[in-house]
């Protein structure tokens, strides 16, 4: 599903985002991507959605060869990948309903389909009562659920979640991870970047550890082990 072959990313200021990363994530897997701040987790996600190209190596996501992908096809790639951004990237001047329907609008769905699909996912994510509220009126956990709902609305094959428990209390954080697990059980490949050791250790899933842009460990049913 996701294949990286000797991928490196060097930025203009000389810093290294990723260094010779080779890995393969199969369809339907749940993977924790762990590492300190600046270890390359976000760079990894940004490469997968072709926010930028790697300096070296090749990346394949589903049927998309990201190196050869023409610019006008990037939108098609992004519609296949749901992303929960670290800073959520919600539009503050739009209601929760309007935020969640954005990917549908951008993909050219009809108005009635947009309404139906948005209402359905909001119900599934227990957000219906917040439909007309604005992001500032919701709690951190609720906002995470909004971001997840938006990421899932196009029923993507892959879900990337960047630090989704970052600013949440342990209980709410665990609730979010449970939600991601449920999504994974329905067949979606989930990659969750985190440095929440409690969560990683509790769920015993594949753990890829990054340090200074390199993969230092890749374990099935792994533990959070960052020295």
């Amino acid at each position: 599903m996701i294949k990286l072959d000797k991928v490196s990313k060097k930025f203009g200021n000389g810093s290294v985002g990723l260094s010779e990363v080779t890995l393969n994530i199969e369809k339907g897997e749940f993977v924790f991507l762990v590492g300190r701040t600046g270890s390359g987790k976000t760079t990894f996600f940004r490469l997968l959605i072709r926010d930028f190209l790697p300096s070296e190596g090749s990346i394949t996501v589903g049927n998309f060869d990201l190196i050869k992908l023409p610019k006008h096809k990037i939108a098609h790639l992004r519609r296949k990948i749901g992303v929960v951004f670290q800073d959520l990237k919600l539009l503050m001047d739009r209601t929760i309903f309007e935020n969640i329907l954005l990917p549908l609008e951008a993909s050219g769905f009809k108005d009635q389909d947009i309404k139906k699909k948005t209402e359905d996912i909001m119900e599934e994510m227990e957000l219906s009562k917040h439909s007309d509220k604005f992001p500032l009126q919701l709690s951190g956990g609720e906002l995470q659920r909004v971001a997840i709902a938006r990421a899932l609305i196009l029923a993507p094959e892959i879900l990337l979640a960047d630090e989704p428990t970052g600013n949440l209390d342990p209980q709410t954080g665990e609730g979010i991870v449970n939600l991601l697990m449920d999504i994974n059980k329905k067949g979606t490949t989930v990659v969750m970047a985190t440095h929440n050791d409690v969560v990683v250790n509790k769920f015993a899933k594949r753990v890829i550890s990054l340090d200074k842009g390199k993969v230092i460990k890749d374990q099935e049913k792994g533990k959070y082990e960052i020295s």
Partner: protein
Amino acid sequence: MRSLKTTIRHIRRSPYQAFAAVLIMTVTFMAISIFTFLILGSSKIISYFESKPQVTAFFKDSAKTENIRALEDQLSQSGKVSKIHFVSKQEALKIYRQQNKNDPLLLDLVTADILPASLEISTYKIEDLASISNMLRQSSFVQEVIFQKDVVSTLTAWTDSLRKIGIALIVVLSIVSIFIMITIIGIRISQKRDEIEIIRLLGAGGWYIRWPFILEGIFYGVTGAFIAWIISSIGLLYETPFLESFLKGIPLLPVPYLFFLEMLGVELILAILLGAFASFIAVLRYLK
């Protein structure tokens, strides 16, 4: 449809910028409307004068019909004359009455005896007017010769200047409005930079992002053109009675309603092109 909704939202959320954009477009299209009226109107006035007898010879009361006929024959034989029309004293009175039918005082004062008989002569070429008028002046029965060459050439010179000034002003105003529109749409894009970035990351294609801004430019152009058209048309209709009395005898006014509609059509097309061009440049410049 969705792009249109986004455009309306953009406009509603920054009404002052929208007002500035519409205002500059209105000014530009006001200039276009006014100069169109002036240039087309003056062209019509010139064609009217050109189609009218270019030399008019007024006869002394002593001139007899056979003297006038002889002069007519002499003019016809010159080969320079395209049309000769004799206006008798009675006919002259009829024309005078027609032209002053709303002024009884002027009608009472004038009789056929006062008005001279005349010959109205058109030539094939404007340069032959001088020799024809000389020929007429030499006749002992001719009291006065009115030579319209000067009127036409003065009017032509005025119209040419008017056209040049009009075109220059319209070009300058169009360039200014394009730059103002580029700036306003550019500001709009900068304000929406985060939103655009988010929408892009969520899978929006290039045109999904560009269309609302291009529609916004078209909206400003069309609204400005429409307001300018309403103001200038109402202005012209309001001034029509005054202009009619000022341009007495020249069949220019009232302007037919179809002309107003044609002008609206042309201006709207121009507005769409201008608005779309300006916003497209802004999108290319600010949405890389």
